């Protein structure tokens, strides 16, 4: 399991969890049937991930395709599209987008707007005949994406998935192990010995700490081999921070299991924390765009800090000095959770 879990997570999740649109089904309703409308449709068709279906003659039929998920968007040309274009120098098209997934919808809109803008530029150039001087484009933006120059989504996801992997091991395995001893009764035999509370908790912590770091190394190797994930920063920094992070998560897992009596309870509570931590931690959505109250909750979220650490070290090459805030926060959380676990562990019922 210790090997299989990281492999599966890295290979399946990193490939699956992507926002890149691979295929957009666009239904065109062309009431104009003019040269210009066909021209614009051809431009959409020319983009590899746009699959244009220009079959529908009425919006109603096109909407049905949207409803049964055969299409992601509808593009409607009004009857007087070309006439308005020629007469008024402007015209309108309607774009209806399925926005159940708001991220995809925004992407479709952005792509489409770009295509239509291109069409505009060309048409103006064609009509005015002197493309060198008009249209009067003043500023052209050229992008240079730092730290992930090709905007490879996998590079963004892989460190995040790795962070989740380490968290699962930390929270679930330690917690389940301790509560299992409660269930089968071996803990009684330990509780009648003069074993100290902190000795017991540390004994439960160290093996999973080692397993966690080992799995991180393993997952990192897969990411590096399979996704060409560049590891810009130092491995020492990464494992140093991961070590501190793991103490916190393990502490939390152990704390939960000192309170719980059965494995089901541990699963339930750990899952609750896990969901909140992961979804708020910034793996899928940027924390900066969350509301203020959510950002304050994230101050207590170890995954939030660790997710930042992972991405900053792996993609940017940040060192410990750049991660001072994360280091301090993770240390405080680690000490707190661990102390809670030691405090709550009872040798006497």
């Amino acid at each position, binding site marked *: 399991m210790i090997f299989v879990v990281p492999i599966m997570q890295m290979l399946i999740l990193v490939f699956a969890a992507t926002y890149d649109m691979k295929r957009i089904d666009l239904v065109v309703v062309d009431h104009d049937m003019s040269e210009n409308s066909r021209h614009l449709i051809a431009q959409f068709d020319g983009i590899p991930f746009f699959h244009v279906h220009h079959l529908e003659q009425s919006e109603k039929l096109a909407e049905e395709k949207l409803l049964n998920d055969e299409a992601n968007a509808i593009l409607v040309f009004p009857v007087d599209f070309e006439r308005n274009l020629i007469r008024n120098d402007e015209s309108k098209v309607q774009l209806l987008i399925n926005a159940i997934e708001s991220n995809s919808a925004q992407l479709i809109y952005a792509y489409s707007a770009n295509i239509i803008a291109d069409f505009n530029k060309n048409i103006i150039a064609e009509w005015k005949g002197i493309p060198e001087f008009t249209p009067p484009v003043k500023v052209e933006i050229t992008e240079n994406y730092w730290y992930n120059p090709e905007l490879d989504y996998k590079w963004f996801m892989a460190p995040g998935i790795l962070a989740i992997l380490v968290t699962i091991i930390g929270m679930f395995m330690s917690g389940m192990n301790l509560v299992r001893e409660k269930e*089968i009764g071996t803990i009684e035999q330990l509780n009648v010995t003069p074993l100290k509370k902190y000795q017991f908790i540390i004994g439960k912590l160290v093996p999973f700490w080692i397993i966690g770091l080992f799995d991180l190394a393993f997952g990192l190797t897969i990411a590096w081999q399979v996704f060409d994930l560049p590891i810009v920063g130092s491995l020492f920094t990464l494992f140093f921070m991961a070590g501190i992070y793991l103490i916190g998560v393990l502490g939390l897992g152990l704390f939960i299991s000192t309170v719980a009596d059965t494995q089901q309870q541990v699963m339930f509570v750990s899952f609750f924390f896990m969901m909140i931590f992961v979804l708020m931690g910034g793996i899928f959505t940027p924390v900066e765009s969350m509301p203020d109250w959510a950002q304050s909750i994230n101050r207590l979220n170890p995954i939030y800090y660790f997710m930042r650490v992972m991405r900053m070290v792996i993609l940017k090459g940040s060192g410990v000095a750049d991660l001072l805030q994360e280091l301090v926060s993770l240390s405080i959380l680690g000490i707190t959770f661990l102390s809670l676990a030691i405090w709550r562990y009872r040798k006497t019922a």
Partner: protein
Amino acid sequence: MEKETIISARNLTKKFGHFTANDNLTFEVKKGEIFGFLGANGAGKTTAIRILCGLSSPTSGEVEVAGFDIYRETEKIKKNIGYMSQKFSLYEDLTILENIKLYAGIYGIGRKQRKTKESELLQKLELENVKNKLIGDLPLGWKQKLAFSVAIFHDPKIVFLDEPTGGVDPVTRRKFWDLIYEAANNGITVFVTTHYMDEAEYCDRVSIMNAGKIEALDTPAKLKEKYTATNMDEVFLKIAR
């Protein structure tokens, strides 16, 4: 000849909500004796033994074990006692040797001393050939003998046995009691709960519990005389009724 008292309980009471599991228990156990703690299922034996071992706190009453107070000096008590629970509680996914090493380590027994005691123990229990086998694979009778030996591995002053012979055949039970006698001869006080009345005959003194209260406490011979019974079975039935 008055022997030293090693366990003393005065008005020991344990309540779980409105349910009183132990109701004003008062008894003393002398050093070196085999003290039987009898009672039907649910009479409160396990609750009492868990309190004496420091696994559970009493609701009220004064209790001293091995000269230490049960409320304030629980950890000191734990150094001086051994415990074998009703449920087998060594690690089934570790080998015999690994379990011995673990508990020897916890009680702070040095390597050299451990090795000597370890080989004595394995020889006595005839487990030398399977010492590297997982405990989970052993038959129940062997497990229980091993659990007892591990419980007294650190030479405690008292050993608490909670129904140590539950579910094993009469021959194995007899062998188990040989081990108990041996420990008692070595000066270990034995506090044992059981509901097998033939085992009660092996004890120096027995107390009989019913519904959380101690109904009788004496030597088996005197109890039989008092209740005009031929064996402990009859005594028990008369009291429990």
